[in-house]
């Protein structure tokens, strides 16, 4: 499967976006979010971007006040996931123009639509930014 979940969390540890590709109950979700957010936020810039948690890995990257956390299987290519996070940020940048936390909060569904074009069932499906954004623009037009 590859990607198990994608989380966007701000510096205060508040979830700003959550997409799971495997089923978890609400309780287990909030427990998991609490645990890994605590783990990742405690790390400093020099430390590597990978944290092992239970039976999977979390690859994370920080952009200003936002943390992007991606949970992946143990055999996933961690370095590629880092690039994937960057691609997601670039796509959002292109759509929103210098994206910030508020853009994501107020346009949650658009970020989800974008993500839908990039990842399906935990697999990366598209990496071309204009292909990712076309369906979104189609909706804005209609």
């Amino acid at each position, binding site marked *: 499967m590859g990607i198990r979940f994608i989380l966007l969390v701000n510096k205060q540890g508040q*979830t*700003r*976006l*959550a*997409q799971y*590709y495997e*089923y978890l109950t*609400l309780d287990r*979700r*909030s427990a998991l*979010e609490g645990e890994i957010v605590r783990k990742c936020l405690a*790390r400093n810039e*020099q*430390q*590597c*971007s*990978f*944290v*092992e948690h239970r039976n999977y890995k979390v690859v994370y990257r920080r952009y200003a006040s936002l943390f992007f956390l991606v949970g992946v299987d143990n055999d996933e*290519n*961690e*370095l*590629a996931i*880092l*690039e*994937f996070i*960057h*691609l997601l940020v670039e796509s959002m940048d292109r759509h929103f123009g210098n994206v910030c936390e508020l853009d994501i*909060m*107020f346009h*949650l*569904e658009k970020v*989800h*639509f974008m993500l*839908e074009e990039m990842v*399906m*069932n935990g*697999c*990366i*499906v*598209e*990496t*071309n*930014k*204009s*292909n990712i954004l076309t*369906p979104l623009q*189609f*909706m804005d037009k*209609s």
Partner: protein
Amino acid sequence: MADLIIDAFSSQTRLRDMIRAIRGCKTAAEERAVVRKECAVIRASISENDQDYRHRNLAKLMFIHMLGYPTHFGQMECLKSIASAGFPEKRIGYLGLMLLLDERQEVLMLVTNSLKQDLNHSNPYIVGLALCALGNICSAEMARDLAPEVERLFQSRDPNIRKKAALCSVRIIKKVPDLAENFMSPAATLLKEKHHGALIAGVQLCTDMCKVSLEALEYFRKKCTDGLVKALKERVNSPYTPEYDISGISDPFLHIRLLRLLRILGKGDADASDCMNDILAQVATKTETNKNAGTAILYECVETIMSIEDNSGLRVLAINILGRFLSNRDNNIRYVALNMLMRAIAVDAQAVQRHRITILECVKDSDASIRKRALELIFLLVNENNVKPLTKELIDYLQVSDQEFKGDLTEKICSIVEKFSMEKKWYIDKMLKVLSEAGNFVKDEIWHALIVAISNASDLQGYTVRSLYRALQTSSEQESLIQVAVWCIGEYGEMLVNNVGMLEKEDPLTVTESDAVDVLEAAIKRHTSDITSRALSLVALLKLSSRFPSCSKRISDIIIEHKGSFVLELQQRSIEFNSIIDKHQNIRSTLLERMPVLDEASYNSKRKSGSLPPTASAPTGASPKLPNGVVKSPAAPMADLLDLSSDDAPVPSSSGGDNLPDLLGGSLTSLPSLTGQAPSNGTDILMELLSIGTPAAQNDVSTSDLLSTNHNNTPSGTPLERLSPPSPFSPQVSTPTATTPVMDLLDGFSPTLSMSNKKSSTDPYFSGNNGPVYPSIIAFQSSSLKIEFSFSKQPENLQSTLINATFTNMSSNIYTDFIFQAAVPKFIQLHLDPASSNTLPASGNGSIGQSLRVTNSQHGQKHLAMRIRVAYKINNKDVLEQGQITNFPPGL
């Protein structure tokens, strides 16, 4: 209509307001209140079937769901939204479907029809939506229903549809692997795609099919290896493609997926591996590595080289790349290098050994993720040749490492030291070092094993006890160091004082008897000591009281001081020990002899078999596995119970030890013995002997006393409490006759009393149950013995099973002193009732019956399993039979 909704949505006054309100909340309670209010409004709107606000309601629900609140009431709204005609409604509906529902919900079946229609829709975006939703959440039933539609979409002219159809199929074949063959040839066609998205999806589909079907693997290996190699070659050699640029590298994701599929095809197949050698070499040498994206490709390529069939040239190249990664300054790259080296060990351990020094440096890194990887790697790299320097490095590092890392590090060091403990002295030295540095992190079973080893190393006991004494002077806050030291001083105190058994290079040590007692007194009075340490100290003091006559008075005072201890365990011991010192001068010295040598082999095999609970630190009331074999026969006079005086040194014989509970009343044999085995370290045994009889000593045989004693023997929080529940005691320990002799030991010592023999009893509470019926099994059969199990269960308690065991003697000899024991994994609790007899007539002329009650705490997930051991005597010769039972009927 569509415009109106979009309008309402895009103006977003209400959605924005809600998000603002939630952002403005200062406490969680405030947030809950806002969400509750919003949910109430949404529910009202839903029940009015308000279509204008459906879009907005769903958007709000998604936000609320993200915050972790239940939103099930909005599920039907998603379905309605999907069923409507416009693209925006469908879009939000499908998004809601993916976020708010999951494949387990019945509601999901209702959407199958809408999905089917949308998969056939003329608008490609709508087809894309339906495929994406299906790919994210479809259940097995939906997969079967809609697979033909998806298969058809592989032919679509739009590559964006083809790519989504391919990924949708990934989920379909995962849910229904039988469908894989339908997708085999469409998937193979996709591998020829020029469109990156369609190609990456096709590669992913092939990869997943290879995982579920061997047939598919063979198919793709034959038909597609060349094509894939060509595709990869094109990507590597193609000019720069700006639309797929990822920080200067053209589409690293596609490279990675291609390499990954090649890895699966090449693994275990020399021809396929051969075919991809050139391109792998090309990727390994040509990829730019100054960017993360390039490193990612190289990393994947190295892994593929390691996995496919042997090509030594490529492997050298790969290992060199890893070496370069390892010395990189970027922590991410070092992390993946360590990760890869773990896998490379299987291929070329020698090459990985060359990086040992660098890896060892990584163990000391400031980054926890890197340390953890490096430590695991080092653990795999240890062998006979490098174990000494590596252990030294690790132990040195233990002194300065972070507190949170010490646990992991200690565990690994102990594990290495135990595994390579060919030299006893080295093992003891290193263990003492670890105990002094990080004794608080050492697991109980580790130091129990150390004690067993010390007890077996007669030439090192003096040296060990002196080293421990020295270590204690410098690090007095490590609990398990104190425990081992206290035990050793109790046993080998005179070696400490008299410098017995000096080794060549050892410095002589001047310790007076009073110094040794000082150490014990400090341990017992140290307020952070746990009960185990204090109890061990008491026993050690008692032992020294006979060996150090000069300190006898002082010891007696310390013991008397603890007669008023609030901890029942300590109070009880002090009272008993005081009585031994005061009233039984004549037997004291023999009673307090050194422990017989502990049986190392049996301890280790028990540890390996996992029947030993992880923290079996304290004596439990039920520990018949006493290796000090002090009891000769159940009918022996009392003197034999503590017969450490008999001229022939007590031989450690486990079968002898097993008889001890018999002596104390047949009922005790039925305690769930092997499940909660106490460690075989000798102190406990003595404590056992002395504490079991207490209730009798007070001339008040009260069951509850015994229960609480047993309970208190266990330091709070250890699993033993769970493993030896008090309940099994209650129906049995009620016979004063059984315990009287022990009372005599402590209060009168009357040799005329003899032990009551095992009483045969049939258990009252196993009668009259009528649970589900299970077939009987032959649990064990050898040429001499047959054991049959029949099962019954009470319907209201499915976790417990009553097992009636029947033992039949197949030989022509009579078996006497027949004892059956059983051990179970940790998730099972076992309760053994007394056997109907301990004599088994020959040639199947009669049998012994015994009831067992097992409680499977993971009923429905794990099956029962049991190890058994049967001990008996033929013409006074001990016979032991062991076996494992795995053929329990399912459902127990």
